[in-house]
């Protein structure tokens, strides 16, 4: 099974992995998410009704009110924050919101994560080293018929990027 490895810059340190939830729509905090459940509530948002709880949230950036950080902060307090985050456009909202979410977060990746990651992919964010490892969901599904991808993942950490 191949992995895709991207390199970027640490926003919030730490290392975590999980299933990706990807959107090309920017995300609002206040008026955009329900912090109690991690659900996107913005009307007409691509992810409306879906929760980022325990997911690796991949999104272009933050928009909307300055309540952004407080909303992700509250989500963290109730255990509804993403496991990790990856985004493209740096703003004070995104920086502060990810900092207070305590979720390992990277940005400035060498390739656009929105092109490289699909919802359902397994993504590991090693923010301390600025490394993102992607296991495509088709590979996970394939793997799942043969071996446990989650166990296999550990052995393949040092593998070269497939792209």
């Amino acid at each position, binding site marked *: 099974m191949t992995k895709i490895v991207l390199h970027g810059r640490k926003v919030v340190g730490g290392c975590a992995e999980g299933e990706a939830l990807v959107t090309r729509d920017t995300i609002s905090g206040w*008026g955009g998410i329900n912090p109690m459940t991690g659900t996107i509530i913005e009307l007409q948002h691509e992810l409306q009704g879906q929760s980022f709880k325990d997911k690796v949230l991949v999104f272009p950036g*933050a*928009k909307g009110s300055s309540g952004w950080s*407080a909303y992700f*902060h509250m989500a963290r307090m109730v255990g509804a924050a993403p496991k990790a985050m990856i985004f493209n456009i740096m*703003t*004070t909202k995104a*920086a*502060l919101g990810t900092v*207070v979410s305590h979720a390992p977060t990277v940005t400035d990746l060498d390739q656009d994560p929105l092109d490289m990651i699909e919802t359902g992919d397994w993504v590991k964010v090693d923010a301390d080293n600025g490394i993102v490892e992607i296991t495509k969901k088709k590979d996970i599904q394939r793997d799942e018929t043969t071996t446990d991808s989650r166990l296999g993942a550990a052995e393949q950490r040092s593998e070269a990027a497939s792209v």
Partner: protein
Amino acid sequence: MKLSDEEKYMLDGRDGRAVQKAMDLLVRYGEALGAEKLVETSNVSTTVVASSGLMREYAAKYGFDALFSEFNLDSQEAVEIPMVKTHSCQLITGFDAAHWEQLGGTPERVQSIKEHEAYNAGIGIQLMSTCAPYQVGNIPVKGEHCAWMESSAVIYINSVLGARTNCEGRESTGAAMLTGRIPYWGYHIDENRLATDLVEVEWEVESMTDWGLLGYYVGEVVGDRVPVLSGVRHVPNSYRIKHFGASAASSGGVEMYHIPKITAEAQSIEDALGKRKPQYTFKFGKAERQKAYDRLNVSAKDTNVDFIMLGCPHASIEQIWEICKLLKGKRVNSGTQLWIFTPRAIRELADRNGYTQIITEAGGFLMSDTCPALGQVLPPGTKVVATDSAKQAHYLPAIMGIQCWFGSLKDCIDAAVTGKWSGGLR
């Protein structure tokens, strides 16, 4: 990030645990941004109230120091909060204690708000309790580095006044109050304040409604870039330019814009662009105006209006007078509620001027300290709202799941009196 000696001392704990925690957050935040350093500030607009059930429970359980520690410093350790170092004011809150019945509150909630207000005042925070602190005397000077939250206020002080702030959050403003520092990033830096996009205004924008529509269009097309507007022929007064900015900050993420000879920093289009070419050019004409209007009214179908919301951003006394002139001697329809929002200090003026009486006699309410979107509260049973604010029309349908009409102040007062929406773009 490079810290000065003074900043290192704060980080090392010289000034106590709270300042240390604050500096620690600023370092984490500054590094997340990729900022090279911090900048001194002595003007912070913040949110320290318990604005959600979660925070109220947290405060009740652990106390106000713990609440501030967690939600304004990102410190899980409850540190004792000393007097703040900077001029600091509380922005809009979730509740108007003077109208707790209308807002569905309880005497207990009023009591706990009073206790929290005393705590916040005690650590040196001015309880302006409005999204428009510049209307009650906090008027940053051009070039003044600030740490403000609230998108409509941020865009106003950056653009109209030429002060320098990013759109901060609860935690960064909390840390700024205790340290007098904020990351030197974004709009603190000259070059980031220059315009990137050009918007050619071809429609003759003059009314408050048109300024809102223009803002809504600009936000949609420029996102969070920095527009400069050409072709503006009428200098907007302060409530029009306030509406424009609030609108642009809600449809997009605009935090800074230029209108030559009207906003603080640009005397010409070339100035605003720093002599570069615009990355994108847009035009605002009849069709764009209509489209912005339609977008703002997309949720509205039912012409029976339950609720009229005025005063977003919080109304100035001149706006309350405009309302009174239209309302005087009329009665709000029995099935309709009219709520008007203004800073509490301005409500005092409205009382003195007899405006509160005019509004009350007509069956409306003049409220303070909150707004329906922030407080997430509407009169019971509200299904259809009308407002003259593009920002409120943008957020209310999403947050509260209601229909919302956007139109002129006159359309709104007509709807208040008749209970029917008969507004339209004129």
